[in-house]
């Protein structure tokens, strides 16, 4: 006799639905057998299977059964709850049931996809279904919490992704704080001369957007600033930003640059960061002419006043607006925002890590980013490709995949290097007439107009040698190799090992996570993927979301990306943030902790454990009190309560005990 027949009126009425997910589940798990098994479980009134439970007909099947069979509990065995828990809860709601009378069983990610033997997979699926059925009996009706949302957004990082996201949101009428670590926005894109495959000038398309940012009434731009603390949760983040002193009052400086001319250093003599040390600057400087905001700054490491306390301070005299302030201190700003977009970008691979390529040892070995500055009209050579000794190279080798596709460094393909190598090959050939050799493993040109650009380069007579370079050396064997750098490579298509003498080597360095990506992700409470880039919530269906609600990703901080992709993703992140804050409120999972007052002994164990100070002590009643608005639902206090007075919605002890017994009762 079945359990629900013993309690003809009183017992819960459970429906169990097992999804085939096409062949994803049914290819391994015997779904029919699981359904038949479910029918034997206590209180199960109906058990069914369907090809795609998440589809409309699948959901309709559940809704109909809820109405027809008066179901008050539903179990769906399908994919991970992170994908479709919300879908099925909604279905229950639509059928007039409380959405929390629901339990999802993960028989795809946790069973069919990870079990080799169909028999074992089926048995495991049955055990998990048994556990869910036992658990759902103990579910209770719950209400979602509604929390108002601040309608401001923080964008971290002022490269092209951050700029685009900030402008999109600002244009939609939302206030944006754009925080950038460097003294100017623009990021890597500002360093480029041309962009592939159209060869339009990077500055021409970027600088208008940069000045829009500076002028936009809805954007608060803080450069030379860093986020140092993030608190709160979706809709209500409290963020602290450190604004480093630039020793120039931003509001007063108009960017006339007379102070730079007036500096006691008559010549620029310090390595210029923006030009990667290929050019020089003074202690008071502006990174580049179109820097935004157009405000100078003083580098205390090189300024005589800061180093010795003795200087004529000619800059101070030169400034008509008295904007220079040697006593400026760092400032901490506190803001409240509803959503955050991270667009912190990437760094390029450090070519010194591959000593075989001689970067840092042979002066004529350059990284691609350095060459971007050399070919840039506003770069240190005015756009002329000249070696450090002033010569113009006659033969140039571009080595692809430096630090990419390599188990010793980064396993992934950096996606942009093939294309930027083509661009640099074109620009170098155009400016110098040199013979240019590309050394590649595989040419990867998937993108609109990319393959066509590759074809153009082939037509231009650039050499393409398929082979990864083993070594760059100055070891000359033949007279024509004397005084050159020799690239040793197997021309794999010809099947011969070649030694190719060149004057200049360009290393197409890959893209890596920012060195502090790990600290940043901790601060924002998100995850990183294996290679260290920020982890998206779902690689296909939630590519700009993170596991922390209200925090979104844009650009190369999520993985190597070119400009079109970064801009597209920034737009998507802006849309997601807008969708969140425009609604005005968020609904939170009702998995908060609560106190059963009758059981609380007033021992205060829980109070110190709560990381959010959500628990206080009611001295009058001598019991603990939980502020559910502050509770985030971790359940630490519940696990620690010696008298069982602290409990957690959705994760009640009784529910979990049933789940334990369930997975073990059936093996």
């Amino acid at each position, binding site marked *: 006799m079945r359990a629900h027949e013993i309690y003809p009126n009183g017992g819960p009425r459970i429906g169990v639905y097992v999804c085939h997910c096409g062949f994803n589940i049914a290819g391994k798990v015997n779904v029919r057998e699981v359904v038949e098994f479910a029918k034997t479980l206590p209180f199960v009134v109906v058990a069914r299977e369907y090809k795609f439970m998440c589809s409309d007909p699948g959901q309709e099947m559940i809704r109909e059964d809820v109405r027809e069979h008066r179901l008050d509990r539903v179990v769906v065995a399908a994919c991970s709850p992170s994908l479709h828990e919300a879908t099925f809860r909604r279905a229950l709601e639509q059928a007039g049931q409380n959405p929390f009378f629901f339990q999802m069983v993960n028989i795809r990610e946790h069973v069919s996809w990870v079990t080799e033997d169909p028999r074992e997979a089926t048995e495991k699926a049955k055990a998990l279904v048994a556990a869910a059925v036992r658990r759902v009996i103990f579910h209770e009706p719950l209400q979602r919490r509604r929390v108002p949302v601040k309608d401001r957004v923080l964008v971290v990082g002022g490269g092209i992704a951050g700029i685009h996201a900030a402008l999109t949101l600002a244009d939609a009428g939302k206030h944006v704080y754009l925080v950038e670590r460097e003294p100017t926005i623009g990021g890597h894109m500002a360093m480029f001369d041309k962009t592939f495959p159209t060869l339009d000038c990077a500055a021409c398309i970027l600088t208008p957007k940069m000045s829009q940012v500076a002028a936009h009434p809805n954007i608060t731009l803080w450069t030379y600033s860093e986020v140092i603390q993030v608190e709160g949760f979706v809709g209500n983040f409290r963020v602290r930003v450190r604004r480093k002193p630039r020793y120039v009052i931003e509001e007063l400086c108009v960017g006339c640059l007379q102070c730079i001319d007036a500096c006691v250093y008559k010549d620029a003599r310090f390595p210029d960061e923006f030009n990667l040390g290929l050019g020089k600057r003074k202690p008071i400087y502006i990174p580049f002419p179109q820097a935004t905001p157009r405000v100078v700054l003083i580098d205390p490491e090189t300024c005589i006043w800061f180093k010795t306390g003795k200087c004529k301070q000619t800059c101070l005299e030169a400034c008509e607006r008295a904007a220079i302030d040697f006593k400026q201190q760092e400032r901490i700003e506190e803001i409240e925002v509803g959503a955050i977009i991270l667009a912190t970008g990437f760094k390029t691979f450090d070519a010194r890590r591959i*000593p*075989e390529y001689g970067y840092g040892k042979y002066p004529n070995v350059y990284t691609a980013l350095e060459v971007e500055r050399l070919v840039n009209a506003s770069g240190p050579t005015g756009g002329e490709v000249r070696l450090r000794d002033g010569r113009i190279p006659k033969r140039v080798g571009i080595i692809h995949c430096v630090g990419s596709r390599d188990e010793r460094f980064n396993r992934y393909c950096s996606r942009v290097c093939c294309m930027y190598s083509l661009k640099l090959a074109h620009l170098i050939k155009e400016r110098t007439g040199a013979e240019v050799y590309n050394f590649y493993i595989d040419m990867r040109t998937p993108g609109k107009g990319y393959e066509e650009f590759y074809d153009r380069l082939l037509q231009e007579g650039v050499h393409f040698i398929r082979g990864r370079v083993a070594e760059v*050396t*100055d*070891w000359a*064997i033949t007279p024509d190799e004397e005084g050159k750098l020799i690239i040793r490579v197997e021309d794999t298509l010809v099947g011969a090992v070649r030694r190719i003498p060149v004057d200049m080597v360009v290393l197409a360095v890959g893209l890596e996570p920012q060195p502090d990506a790990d600290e940043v992700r901790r601060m924002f409470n998100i995850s990183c993927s294996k290679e260290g880039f920020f982890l998206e919530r779902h690689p296909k269906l939630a590519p700009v979301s993170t596991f922390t609600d209200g925090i979104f990703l844009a650009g190369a901080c999520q993985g190597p990306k070119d400009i079109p992709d970064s801009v597209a993703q920034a737009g998507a992140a802006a849309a997601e943030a807008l969708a969140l804050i425009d609604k005005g409120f968020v609904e939170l999972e009702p998995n908060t902790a609560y106190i059963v007052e009758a059981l609380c002994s007033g021992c205060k164990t829980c109070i110190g454990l709560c990381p959010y100070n959500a628990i206080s002590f009611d001295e009058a009643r001598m019991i603990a009190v939980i502020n559910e608005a502050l509770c985030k639902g971790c359940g630490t206090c519940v696990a620690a309560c010696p008298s069982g007075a602290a409990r957690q919605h959705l994760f009640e002890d009784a529910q979990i005990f049933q789940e334990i017994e369930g997975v073990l009762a059936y093996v």
Partner: protein
Amino acid sequence: MSYLYFPGCSLKGTGRAYEESLLAVFRALGIPLAELADWNCCGATAYMSIDERQAFALAARNLALAEAQGASDNGAIQLIAPCSACYLVLLKAQRHLMTDTAFRQEMSGVLPGNMGDPGQIRIRHPLDVLVHDVGLQEIARHVRQPLRGLKVASYYGCQIVRPFALFDRPHDPSTMDDLVRTLGAEPVDWPLKTHCCGGSLTGTMPEVGLRLNYLLLREAQRRGADLIITVCPLCQFNLEAYQDFIRRRYPDLAPMPVLFFTQLIGMAMGLPPRELGLQRLLIPVEGRMAALSKEGAHARA
């Protein structure tokens, strides 16, 4: 610290001077070396080409002997292997013993002594020991005749830095250059420090082996080296013994002395040439040294 010493076959033959100079230098530094009793061939390259497991078994016997002999000494057992091939094969076999438990069990029944934990033996190259255990400062203290003005090209060959780069970088090693500086000489920066000498190919396929060695010698010569130092008996033999043959094909090559690095240390420490086996060199080094000291005297005057 005391060390066990695994000479390997070459140090009893073509590389006798390596053994003599190594022992002399360690003696002068006051570091005891005890030769591993009844050691056998390490199982090197040629053996590995016939039967890898037997090669590992040969190496395992040596490790077992080391464990038995070194057991009285507290702490890790330090086993010095000067020949690059021995050094590598012993390391490789040790890793194999540590990962392949079936093999270890098989071996433990038949090996002398009881094979306890093969991982506790530290297989060391004398270059590593001299630079990192003894230390350059201590060596500097023993230098009596600094080799001023001498330009030395350090040649590592392959197997002491590859594939296990335990004490130096595999691509651009620098321990020997530091040592050369300590001895008062000047290291030559050249890109072929770790390019292979061809190993036994010089004997078996002379047209290939001789060209490889020619390229090495020529580059050292072009970069102004007075001599080359090596860490391996086979490299030393290839670079030195075949120079007449090489010159027959490539006449632009001048005679280039090729020493073991321990011989160079011994010279700087002022040890008698006979103790360092200098008389065994086919291309004598004394001429260069005399010329140098004359130059030096000239410069001082």
